């Protein structure tokens, strides 16, 4: 691979005693759509603000196209940004808002007019040119903000939870727009969200943030199939955790003992193993097989059904092991095991050890 387009090198940000970002390293390829996903307060915005130049890092460096950005003030970085809050200039019309970055760059009027038209077309808001931001819906305002941020052809576009103020349906609609615009313009996008579905839908790669650290970077399927930490496993997709004992551990694989079953061999292992110590077995609710009797030949856990919830296209079955640990199963609607299932029934949950994970 050639030199990465954007490099975040050991960025750290301290606010007095609080460390918001701990030595984050990240390489971003040109044209990539990379999302920072993480819970509130995990340092996503802070990292983005350092890229934008609103905050100086305590240490570390940001390199764009081989050049450090840190000594360049915000207004000379030529970076686009869409904010969580509505930041259109309220005294300017939609057209004037999009023209703003071009006017401060003193481009000729004809060029500005043409670009404003192109941008309105890109975000599908032709004819809204003369409206004031206050006369637009939240979704429309964010689309104008996107047009304004792309008007000067920035090499890098930052988006800090731009859709969090919108309702679910509108959010999905604009996610589609953002994808289309990303493909059309080939701009590199760094996107922040705490919504895993949004991250999975939009991104080429996802960086999962936790307490100021990137726990794992990868594509959605990679993070789902191979979570590096328990936090990532919990954050991407649904997960069940069962306490277990570590019997042996070697080469990223472990044999574990679960109460009520024999030793389960060859489970993918993460973390620092202590043989004979405690660990957690992670299972995906949608990959568990529910059967009435012990399945011959495959690994299974006996449980008691505690609740059954209908969730539209699938059914959520809450169960408990003999030791009282909760284990959720998700079955497609119409699954034959469901029809006569009742609370209190004793059933077996089978799984493939290779698709499970052990976290220490």
């Amino acid at each position, binding site marked *: 691979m050639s030199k990465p387009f954007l490099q975040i090198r050991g960025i750290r940000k301290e606010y007095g005693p609080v460390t918001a970002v701990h030595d984050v390293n990240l390489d971003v390829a040109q044209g990539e759509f990379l999302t920072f996903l993480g819970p509130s307060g995990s340092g996503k915005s802070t990292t983005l603000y350092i890229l934008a130049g609103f905050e100086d890092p305590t240490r570390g460096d940001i390199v764009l196209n081989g050049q450090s950005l840190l000594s360049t003030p915000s207004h000379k970085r030529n970076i686009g940004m869409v904010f969580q809050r509505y930041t259109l200039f309220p*005294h300017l019309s939609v057209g004037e808002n999009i023209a703003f970055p071009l006017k401060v760059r003193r481009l000729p009027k004809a060029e500005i007019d043409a670009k404003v038209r192109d941008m309105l077309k890109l975000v599908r808001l032709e004819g809204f040119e003369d409206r004031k931001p206050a006369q637009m819906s939240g979704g429309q305002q964010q689309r104008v903000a996107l047009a304004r*941020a792309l008007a000067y052809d920035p090499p890098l576009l930052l988006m800090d939870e731009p859709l969090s103020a919108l309702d679910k349906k509108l959010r999905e609609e604009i996610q589609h727009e953002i994808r289309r615009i990303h493909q059309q313009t080939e701009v590199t996008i760094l996107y922040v969200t705490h919504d895993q579905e949004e991250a999975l839908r939009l991104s080429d790669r996802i960086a999962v943030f936790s307490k100021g650290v990137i726990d794992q970077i990868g594509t959605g399927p990679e993070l789902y199939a191979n979570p590096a930490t328990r936090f990532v496993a919990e954050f991407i997709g649904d997960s069940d955790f069962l306490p277990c004992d570590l019997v042996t551990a070697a080469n990223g694989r472990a044999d574990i003992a679960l109460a009520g079953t024999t030793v389960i061999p060859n489970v993918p292992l993460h973390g620092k193993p202590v043989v004979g110590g405690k660990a957690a077995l992670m299972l995906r609710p949608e990959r568990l097989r529910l059967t009435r009797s012990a399945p011959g030949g495959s690994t299974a856990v006996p449980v008691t059904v505690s609740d059954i919830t209908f969730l539209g296209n699938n059914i959520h079955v809450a169960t408990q092991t003999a030791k009282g640990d909760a284990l959720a199963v998700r079955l497609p609607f119409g699954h034959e095991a469901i029809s006569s299932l009742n609370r209190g029934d004793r059933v077996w949950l089978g799984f493939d050890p290779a698709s499970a994970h052990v976290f220490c």
Partner: protein
Amino acid sequence: MLSRTDAKAAGSKIPAGRLTLTDFDLTLPALGLLVLFFVVPVAILLARSVSEPVPGFGNYAELLGSSTYLRIFANTFLVSGLVTFVSLLIGFPVAWALAVMPSRFASVVFAILLLSMWTNLLARTYAWMVLLQRTGVINKVLIGLGLIDKPLPLVNNLTGVTIGMTYIMLPFIILPLYGVIRKIDPAILQAAALCGANRWQSLVRVLLPLAMPGMAAGALMVFVMSLGYFVTPALLGGTANMMLAELIAQFVQSLVNWGMGGAAALVLLVVTLALYAVQLRFFGTDRMGGR
């Protein structure tokens, strides 16, 4: 259903002793006082201005026809305009600083502002007299520093009035401007910066237009208050630049000419109302939020 009908029935004949918002007859005594002490005197003044010494508009013709009086009008507008301009020039940065500084510093500045507003007007004006006079602190310091040889004429002229009145009017600019600037989302200025606007462009193209309603409100208030100001121009101004309020006082007190005094007062009132109408037209109460 039943309870709703009950409530409706009860609502139609309100039991005595219960207050509703439409019981405005309670406000009648206050309205009566307002009419008695505000509307009536103005009406009497109006009547005297068209009836003394002889019935007709002679007083107005004299007031608006004589160059002496017109010069006083012009001077009144000049002083008010200057005071408004200088107040805006100083008030904007102060309001801006107040809006962004940590609140414990801002509250100290506010305390100073309010304290000065609550200090007796005469005391404040005499204090400026002491500071500005030929042998005052300012001239002494400037001479001591070798910046000037002779004391500057800072009092009994336009400079003195402008300084004294600007000082008194500043809070009336700073407070509304502070309110408007506080409401501006800092992210809007961050967005402007990323769009490529340097500080100056952000100030001129974003911050100033957004602060405009506050500036207009403050400026109008200061301008109108200045038009009718008496104490400070009388003490710090010179005879060469008399203001309208001083003229009115002279008509009534020295010349006992109620006709001319009333005419001058009414001209002032009409100008004030006209300015208020202009402000309502361009920055009507519903447009004051800045959105």
